C-alpha cells in the first residue's frame, strides 16, 4: 500500500513493509544522507524543518547510547572561548592564556594614559602660543658672481684664429687655462678669507 507522507512529523507512520511512494523514497534518501554526514561529524547547517526534527531524534538516540563524543580539539577550543568570553571578549594574552579577572578590570589604565597625553599636548600648544610667532630669519642675498668667475665662451679671449695659427692649439689651450686658473685662485682665496 502506498502511503501519503505529506505530514512527516505528526502524520501516521506506515508499517515497516508498506510500499513507499517515490516522494517518501526521496525524503528517506535525503534523511539517510543527513545521517551519514552527521555520523561523520559534518552535519550541514541548512536543512528542512522536518529533517532537522528527525535528525535531532537520531542524535538524541546516539547521545543516550554514549556515541556523541566531543573531539579533544573542539573541547579545548570551546574551553578557551568560554574563558575569553568570561573576561569580556578580550583578545587573549600572548601565551594564549587568560587575563586574570582582577587585571582585566584595571580599566583606569587606558584613561590615565589618554589623560596624560592630552595634558602634554595642551601644554605644548600653550608654550607655542606664549612664545609668539617665530620671526622669519633674514636671508642675506649673496653677491653676484663676477663674470670672470662664471662659465663663459673663450672666443673673446682667443679671438679669430688665423690660418697660420690653426695648428697651434696648445698655445690657445694654455691661454684659456691661465685665464680660468686666475678666476679659480681668486674665488678659492676669497672663500678662505670669509668667516
Amino acid at each position, binding site marked *: 500500500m502506498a502511503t501519503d507522507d505529506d505530514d512527516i512529523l505528526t502524520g501516521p507512520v506506515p508499517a515497516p513493509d508498506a510500499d513507499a511512494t517515490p516522494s517518501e523514497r526521496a525524503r528517506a534518501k535525503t534523511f539517510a544522507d543527513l545521517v551519514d554526514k552527521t555520523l561523520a561529524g559534518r552535519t550541514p547547517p541548512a536543512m528542512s524543518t522536518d529533517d532537522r526534527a528527525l535528525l*535531532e531524534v*537520531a542524535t538524541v538516540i546516539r547521545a543516550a547510547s554514549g556515541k556523541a563524543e566531543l573531539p579533544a580539539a573542539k573541547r579545548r577550543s570551546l574551553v578557551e572561548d568560554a574563558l575569553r568570553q568570561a573576561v569580556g571578549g578580550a583578545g587573549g594574552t600572548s601565551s594564549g592564556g587568560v587575563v586574570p579577572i582582577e587585571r582585566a578590570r584595571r580599566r583606569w589604565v587606558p584613561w590615565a594614559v589618554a589623560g596624560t597625553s592630552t595634558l602634554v599636548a595642551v601644554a605644548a600648544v600653550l608654550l607655542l602660543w606664549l612664545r609668539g610667532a617665530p620671526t622669519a630669519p633674514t636671508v642675506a642675498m649673496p653677491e653676484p658672481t663676477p663674470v670672470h668667475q662664471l662659465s663663459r665662451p673663450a672666443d673673446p679671449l682667443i679671438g679669430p684664429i688665423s690660418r697660420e695659427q690653426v695648428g697651434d692649439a696648445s698655445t690657445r689651450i694654455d691661454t684659456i687655462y691661465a685665464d680660468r686658473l686666475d678666476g679659480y685662485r681668486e674665488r678659492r682665496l676669497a672663500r678662505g678669507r670669509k668667516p
Partner: protein
Amino acid sequence: MASEPATAVELEEEQRQVEEAQAGNLDAMRPILERYAQPLYGTVILPRLGDAASAEEVLRDTLATAVEKIRRFTWQGKSIYPWLRQIAINKVYDVHRQSKRSRRLADAMVHEVPIESDPDSHADAQLIADQERAAHRARIDEAMVNIAERYRLAIELRLIQELPREDCAKKLGITIGTFDVLLFRAVRAFRKQFGERTIDSGGAQDGD
C-alpha cells in the same frame, strides 16, 4: 563506560583550583572545564537538544557562565560538577524556550532525569554522568519497546552500532533504498513514541 569515583586527592586538587579561580586567577578553571566539558556535552546538553551545533554553543555559554560566577560557588566537600550541570540544564531550557521547535519533542528531551541530589552524598562527576547516561538510555529503551521490531533493528544497526547503510541493508536482506525508507519510518515512529510517553506520564506541559 566504566568509571572510577573521584579520589580524595582529586577532590582536593579540584578544591584548590576552585579557590584559586575565586581569588582571581581564571586560568585555574581551565583543567576543571576541560575535565567536565565532555560529560556536560554528552550526557547533559546534547541528549536534551539533539543538535550538535546548538549543544556546542550551550556548552560554551555554560562554561563561560561558570567562570563568571565562580565566586558565587560554595565548596561543600564534593565536586563542582553538579553545579556546572545545573547551569547547563538552565541553558538548555533557555534554548527550548526561545526556539520554535516542536514543543512535544522539546518537552520530552528536557524531561528531567532524577539525579541523586542529597547534599551529603559525595557522588562525583563521573558517577553522576554515568547515572544520567543510564537514565537517558532507559528512556530510549522504553520508547523502542513500543515500535515495530524492524524499526528497532534499523535504529540499533544504524544509529547505535553506527554500521554503514550498505551493511545494515545486507543484514536485513533488503536494498539500500529500502533500508533508507525503513530507517526514515523508524525515526518517525520513535519520535512519536518518545513524545507520547512523556506526555502520558505528565512530563510535558502541553502538546504540539
